């Protein structure tokens, strides 16, 4: 599923594979049109939520501080969270990596005798490729978020972390429903398609043995799992089946319940331009003795999968403040052209370009940091003020650094190429030695007829630059200007 994981031996950094995927993506005008329209719409919705720049600045500062505090105090908060959840009757499990997380979830399902699972939307579950692991073990998994259900039918990964089926239009969806649910009348009407999905998925809900969900925030103070959504599938997944398993990255913990309001506002306004989602679902306990619904057992799987390592880096640790709103993705001029699948990673767009090379290592995914024009839009909209352009730049530099690999960033220096290193050293020498530079200019202007016509990718769409017959400084000297 993750193209970035393949062929790194012959394609260090995954550049060739990335360029192939981009080439493919650029050749699909309909899909590009779908992205363009969707992104324009979401950007306008977000902008409408923040008419006052001073208010936005204050909200970002608060959200930043809360998330940064979470990361600073992470070990203490995780222990506190575990203690409170346990007191509340929610069982906590720690997972080092995807394999451990999947094994824990599988074991919980087996113990409960569960054969069918209904899932709420969760990017962490994409990260650990949970569906594949469960299906391999013979468990039926149904995604219940409409977008996730659509791409599950299409056997595709999400193309966006908030709107996973954003690359599909109504005709694509209609064709998928016709293929997989021929019993339902064919329609391209969005309301009717939605009605069909309701009908199909309700049956799945009613018969599911377990529900699996992600977590938006985990509150240490009260031992509370917070989930936001618009559809109600998250509520159904976490209420109807007798077993609820939530899976989260360890960075999602926050200290206090009153940290929630500003984070919720920052999240929903940034993500979809909504002042609040239809549902905010705060879960603190399994069903109590006298209650009539809700799961009898609730489990939380806390996944590290590289996060504690990323936190060791003095600059790149900022990545972990992310609340997965997707605003950086929506505002990225590269994403809007190539779409989510071109990245070939679980998390696309700017946050993906920063997170995935750290998670998977530069040798596997370092090329993602090149899918960026450093325009700065992502950093400007990030509700927790992650300096994404600076982090992308840092990753590019780390990838070609000489010197030893260090623990926080696997693959450091592994994309360094001797030829490129020599060229840059030569350039530095030339530009810091006036005599040499003047000599170079003299030759470059006299021998300008010898300028090569082809200069790699530069000349694919442009003509090669040709030095002038005489340099400006030479002309100035001739006119009698002194260097003052």
């Amino acid at each position, binding site marked *: 599923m993750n193209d970035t994981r393949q062929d790194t031996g012959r394609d260090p950094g995954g550049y060739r594979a990335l360029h192939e995927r981009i080439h493919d993506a650029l050749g699909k005008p309909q899909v590009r049109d779908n992205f363009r329209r969707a992104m324009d719409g979401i950007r306008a919705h977000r902008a409408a939520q923040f008419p006052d720049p001073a208010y936005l600045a204050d909200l970002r500062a608060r959200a930043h501080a809360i998330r940064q505090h979470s990361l600073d105090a992470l070990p203490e908060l995780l222990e506190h969270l575990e203690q409170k959840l346990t007191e509340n009757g929610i069982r906590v499990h720690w997972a080092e990596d995807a394999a451990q997380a999947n094994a824990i979830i599988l074991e919980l399902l087996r113990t409960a005798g569960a054969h069918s699972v209904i899932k709420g939307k969760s990017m962490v579950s994409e990260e650990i490729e949970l569906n594949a692991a469960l299906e391999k073990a013979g468990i039926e998994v149904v995604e219940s978020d409409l977008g996730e259900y659509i791409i599950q039918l299409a056997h595709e990964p999400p193309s966006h972390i908030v709107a996973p089926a954003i690359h599909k239009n*109504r005709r694509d969806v209609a064709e998928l429903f016709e293929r997989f649910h021929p019993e339902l009348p064919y329609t391209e009407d969005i309301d009717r398609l939605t009605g069909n999905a309701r009908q199909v998925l309700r049956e799945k809900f009613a018969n599911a043995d377990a529900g699996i969900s992600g977590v938006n925030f985990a509150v240490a103070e009260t031992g509370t799992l917070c989930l936001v959504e618009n559809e109600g599938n998250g509520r159904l997944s976490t209420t109807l089946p007798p077993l609820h398993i939530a899976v989260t990255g360890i960075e999602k913990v926050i200290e206090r319940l009153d940290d929630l309001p500003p984070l919720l506002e920052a999240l929903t306004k940034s993500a979809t331009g909504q002042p609040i989602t239809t549902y905010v679902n705060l879960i603190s306990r399994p069903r109590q003795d006298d209650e009539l619904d809700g799961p009898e057992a609730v489990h939380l799987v806390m996944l590290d999968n590289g996060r504690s390592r990323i936190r060791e880096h003095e600059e790149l640790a900022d990545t972990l403040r992310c609340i997965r709103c997707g605003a950086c993705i929506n505002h990225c001029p590269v994403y809007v052209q190539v779409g989510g699948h071109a990245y070939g990673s679980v998390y696309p767009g700017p946050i993906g370009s920063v997170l995935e090379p750290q998670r998977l290592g530069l040798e596997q995914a370092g090329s993602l940091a090149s899918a960026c024009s450093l325009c700065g839009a992502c950093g400007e909209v990030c509700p927790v003020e992650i300096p994404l352009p600076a982090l992308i730049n840092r990753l590019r530099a780390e990838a070609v650094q000489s010197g030893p690999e260090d623990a926080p960033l696997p693959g450091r220096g592994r994309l360094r190429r001797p030829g490129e290193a020599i060229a840059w050293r030569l350039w530095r020498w030339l530009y810091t030695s006036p005599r040499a530079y003047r000599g170079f200019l003299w030759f470059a202007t006299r021998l300008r007829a010898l300028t090569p016509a082809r200069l790699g990718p530069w000349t694919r769409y442009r003509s090669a630059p040709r030095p002038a017959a005489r340099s400006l400084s030479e002309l100035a000297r001739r006119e009698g200007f002194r260097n003052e």
Partner: protein
Amino acid sequence: MNETRQSILQRLRGTHVTGDHSGRSARSAPSHADWDSERLIARFSERQQAVRGEVYRLPRGQWLNWLALELPGRGLRQLLAGSGDIGRQLAAVDIRGVQLRTYDEPIEAWKQQLFEEVDVAITGARCGIAETGSLVLWPDRQEPRLTSLVPPVHIALLSADTLYPTLADAMAAENWAERMPTNVLLISGPSKTADIEQTLAYGIHGPKSLITLILED
């Protein structure tokens, strides 16, 4: 398992953090302390209506009459209520053409009927949030969690005097941090999705319509 926990925590503790985020408590959310009752109701209604929620203002004693007038006209025949005060008041009256069903046994015993037969459910609301137009529900034995989720129409009774300007105000005034129940819900409109072409469609999984009756003294 326990080893994993230890090694993750150990790595986290081994990392030096420079954190000085003393500024976090200095900043506080803007409040709307000046919003009076009329303003709170207006804001709540405006936000609900913006996401296709219906809002009606009624004198406190009128909600049963409202149901008797409205339900038959909307073709809603099977009404679900909890076993609390609202359910008891409903049980004491007879609404022509409407059959009352009380949620008084575990979901496992009647899941099929809940999904297939109930047209409309009624619940109370613990309080409301004016800023975002949100109903706050603390489901319990008397009003279980699925009441406000599975039936296609959800009617909520909201006392006008329980409207807070913001979520932060409600949390602080009612001291939620000390007494979080099994489940807390904020509900801001009917169920919706924009997963196909970013086009809004209502009633994907939860109620297709949400009706708030604001009860005033």
